[in-house]
């Protein structure tokens, strides 16, 4: 579904993404992990067209994404830190996005109800706490029943209850056969969600494996330990 070919991105002299090639398919739930500043968010933003790649191509459903925008219709994106116009209320933001997308599809308002956002509809964005803002972001990402969900640190800042609601929602969507791409630096919370892991470091993909592969090759039961083992092995080389 998403094909990334030899993608590179420089900010000035800094190479943020270095010759990355990836392929992600329907039904997969992929964790994109790596240390801070390894290029996860930039990679996601290039897929969304918010960052223009220096080199390489990205295909979405077989079509190049550069100079294209229609494809974003199929993507629900939840940013790491949602930034919204200060003066608008939650209600207005939802209304606006709905209007802009002119979506005739059934809206998925599960999260809206579960997060009880309706009670906060008249609150302006600048008055919201970080967690509430994240709830709005999550709601927006799932609202249009997208085929692909890209979630950047989805649970950061959410309270355990909301976090649990979101996780359940992700699992539900995964079971509908959607492609889900999650970045996170907390591995433990992903254990029961993901089918594949992409590990990035210094702008390069260190490995891209299914969970089964990973566990088999390292002999570890816990994902975090399995990754640690691999990293240790690499460092020793």
């Amino acid at each position, binding site marked *: 579904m998403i094909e990334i070919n030899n993608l590179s991105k420089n900010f000035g002299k800094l190479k943020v993404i270095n010759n990355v090639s990836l392929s992600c398919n329907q039904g997969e739930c992929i964790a994109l992990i790596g240390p801070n500043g390894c290029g996860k968010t930039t990679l996601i933003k290039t897929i969304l067209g918010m960052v223009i790649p220096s080199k390489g191509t990205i295909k979405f459903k077989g079509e190049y994404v550069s100079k294209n925008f229609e494809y974003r219709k199929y993507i629900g994106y939840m940013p790491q830190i949602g930034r919204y116009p200060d003066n608008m209320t939650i209600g207005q933001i939802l209304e606006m996005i709905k209007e*802009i997308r002119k979506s005739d599809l059934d809206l998925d308002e599960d999260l809206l109800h579960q997060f009880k956002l309706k009670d906060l509809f008249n609150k302006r964005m600048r008055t919201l706490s970080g967690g509430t803002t994240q709830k709005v972001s999550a709601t927006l990402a799932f609202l249009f029943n997208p085929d692909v969900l890209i979630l950047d640190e989805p649970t950061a800042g959410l309270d355990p209850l909301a976090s649990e609601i979101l996780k359940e929602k992700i699992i539900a969507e995964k079971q509908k056969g959607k492609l889900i791409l999650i970045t996170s630096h907390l591995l433990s919370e992903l254990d029961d969600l993901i089918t594949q892991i992409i590990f990035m470091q210094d702008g390069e993909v260190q490995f891209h494996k299914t969970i089964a592969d990973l566990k088999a090759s390292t002999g570890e039961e816990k994902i975090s330990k399995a990754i640690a083992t691999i990293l240790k092995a690499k460092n020793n080389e």
Partner: protein
Amino acid sequence: MNRIIKFIVLDILKNKIVLVYTAILSILSWSVFSLEDNSTKGLLTLLNVILLTVPLISVVFSTIYIYNSSEFIELLLSQPIKRSKIWWSLFFGLTLSLLLSFFIGTGIPILFYAPSDVGIMMLLVGFFITTVFVAIAFLSSILTRDKAKGIGIAIMLWLFFALLFDGIVLFLLFQLSDYPIEKMMVGITAFNPIDLARILILLHLDVSAMMGYTGAIFKDFFGTSIGIFIAFIILFLWIIVPFLVSLIKFNRKDL
């Protein structure tokens, strides 16, 4: 009207600064006309407003607004919307709202007290100046990510066009006074939208003097309908060029 423009216009019209701007323009215009016994003197005062205040507010407010819209732009970018459409919508939204407040603040008093050709020309020129400086704001805010720097650039550009440019021209005039530079001077005005606007109004306001030998060269050019047409085309270019440059840059920008 496209939906994004609608949201932007509604957002700006709720903005306190724009409301204050409209109110100040309005108070100024009404009082200027009602205090002066002839409307020409009122128009003269408004000329300074149009040539100084309107560009300043337009450029600074727009720059700040564009920087403050970065969240909004980001939000929209993850939606299936063309990048250039976002930028165009922002431009139209800003321009429309500032034009509206200019029209309410200054246009209505002008139409009420001085619905002459000078008044109409002033209104038209005010519209153009507003739009030109919104376009310049787009350029200055895309040049740097740093908000403070961007506002600085905007103010510098305003300072240049409103004051320094004329100083330089005056200096050149005296340095080159032995040469026949009248025609060149007409050309030079094209490089400053404020000067262009001022001369267009001058030709109506000081028509008697402009008919004389000193103004004859300007009258010969700007006084003809072709001249006025060209002047407005140049003003239009002053809108299109900075904005298109900013659009190209925005299309390549990483957010």
